[in-house]
């Protein structure tokens, strides 16, 4: 019984059940129409990877009790920070990529510092960043390029030292999937096996109490905001190198999908509880549904309704399981 309770307690349980259920559903309904083919599997894994790369860092921040709504805009901004210097000013790609990362770390630091200093809800502060970043991206791009798109990256990429780690498809799986897996392992390990991870839980559970026992809550939160910004830039880099182009709208709404992945994966919106593996499973579920639905006969107009229903079901399931876990004995 104790062993069963130990399993019930894990925040990922709901996500595991949901993932298996959805996989079975699509296998039955759409297995022969492409869902179970190698190509079909890689397809939803790629979509899952895009959500997952963001979701794992968003989950850590959520556990620490904060939100970063600006990551979607950061994707757009970072994409332009790479594409414009390369295609218009002749920069080498590795330099532009470093620039994008440096910028994102600065923005992340700024977001975190503002949240800690003003004690305003991060929801509001990063909402403001969302608009600021997107607006700056628009304005600067049109001012410099007279156009809303930057393209033609492909010709500048060969021989660049950094490009290799952000592009390609080792063993047939796009690089984004490898990054997703790697980030999940590393961040999951950090969360559960280091003191820093304990501090993340504490900052989200009760920041005041944590501070009173000496946990450097401010440092933890600021570093996590820098992490979310960095993963947004990571995704932007992978996308720009893959498509060879970017536009001012790149990444719009990505923050909501990342939060949805994290929540489906068992992370509490109120913080203090959750897991990275859960967020990854949530991203996988989102990817399976987003692509899987196209292999069924269901009209894609219903897609959003289906997604909303799933989100609700996942949250209810997680809530129920968590209550079971916390029941006093």
């Amino acid at each position, binding site marked *: 019984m104790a062993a069963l309770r130990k399993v019930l307690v894990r925040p990922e349980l709901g996500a595991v059940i949901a993932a298996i259920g959805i996989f079975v559903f699509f296998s039955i309904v759409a297995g022969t129409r492409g869902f179970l083919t190698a190509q079909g599997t890689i397809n939803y894994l790629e979509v899952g990877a895009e959500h997952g790369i963001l979701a794992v860092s968003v989950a850590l921040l959520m556990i620490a009790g904060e939100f970063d709504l600006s990551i979607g805009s950061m994707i757009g901004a970072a994409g332009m920070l790479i594409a414009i210097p390369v295609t218009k000013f002749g920069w080498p790609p590795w330099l532009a990529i470093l620039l994008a990362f440096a910028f994102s770390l600065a923005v992340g630091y700024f977001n975190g510092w503002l949240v800690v200093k003003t004690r305003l809800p991060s929801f509001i502060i990063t909402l403001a960043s969302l608009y600021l970043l997107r607006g700056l991206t628009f304005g600067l791009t049109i001012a410099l390029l007279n156009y809303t798109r930057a393209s033609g990256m492909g010709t500048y990429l060969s021989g660049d030292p950094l490009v290799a780690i952000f592009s390609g498809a080792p063993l047939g799986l796009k690089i984004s999937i490898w990054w997703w897996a790697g980030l999940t392992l590393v961040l999951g390990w950090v969360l559960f096996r*280091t003191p820093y991870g304990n501090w993340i*839980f504490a900052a989200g*559970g*009760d920041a005041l*109490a944590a501070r*009173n026992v000496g*946990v450097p809550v401010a440092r933890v939160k600021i570093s996590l905001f820098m992490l979310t910004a960095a993963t947004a830039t990571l995704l932007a880099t992978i996308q720009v190198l893959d498509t060879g182009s970017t536009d001012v709208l790149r990444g719009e709404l990505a923050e909501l999908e990342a939060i949805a992945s994290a929540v489906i994966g068992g992370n509490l919106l109120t913080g203090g509880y959750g897991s990275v593996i859960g967020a990854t499973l949530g991203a996988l579920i989102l990817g399976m549904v987003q692509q899987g639905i196209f292999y069924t006969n269901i009209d894609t107009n219903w897609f959003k309704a289906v997604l909303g229903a799933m989100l609700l079901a996942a949250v209810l399931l997680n809530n129920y399981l968590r209550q079971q876990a*916390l029941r006093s004995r």
Partner: protein
Amino acid sequence: MAIIELKDVTKSFGRVNALRGISVKIDAAEVHCLLGDNGAGKSTLIKILSGVHKPTQGQYEFEGKPVELTSPREALDLGIATVFQDLAMLPLMSITRNFFLGREPKKKFGPVEVFDSGKASKITNEELSKIGIKIRDPDQAVGTLSGGERQAVAIARAVYFGARVLILDEPTSALGVKEAAVVLKYIVQAKTKGIGVIFITHNVHHAWAVGDTFTVLNRGTSYGTFKKGEMTRERLLQMMAGGEELEELAVELDLIAKRDPSEAGKLEHRVAEELDREAHPKS
């Protein structure tokens, strides 16, 4: 020598005087009870003792030397551990992780330092059983423990990490009779270990059960500090209840009763008699 001594401490917030001229001494191996009704200034006094606030005037001395604490962390480093009313326990986190929060034991894993959860669980189990709490699994969430058990874990944590002074802010106020008795037992255990315990409460019976010294606060000032031999429980009650106010109230109700012969009047008369009795206890 007293471990902590406050000399003529005043604390104001803007124009509001929360504390005036408070002088108090905490010795090792003693339970010093801070009594007072709501609004007496107890919480402000704890916040000064635990390093959350700085006194506006007056001296804070630790082992005879003046100190200026700027954060609870500093107080903790000196050995002044505070268990606040909200306990500083994270209900969703395991007992072990709560126990070692901020002071996690580490071991090396190649080039990185990781949380030594094995060692942490073992110590948590040991410390808790030392104060008589048997938990099935130190990885269970703190939220599964009862209020009294959580208090006990908080106290055990403070004791383990070498507290010299333990400040307990109303630890029994939210507990039932049986659980309160258990917490009082741990307070005594801590004292026998040589720790100076500051026990803040508004419940005179609890204070009387374990206290060696009593300080009564009323509206920011102290009525004085008394050792157990110099005091009786009834006088303590009277001091705390603010005897004069009760007398005044009794007279007022009596007047109303005399003017109103109805049932309500008779009720007021009875209440007036009761208050009078409390204001002038036959000792």
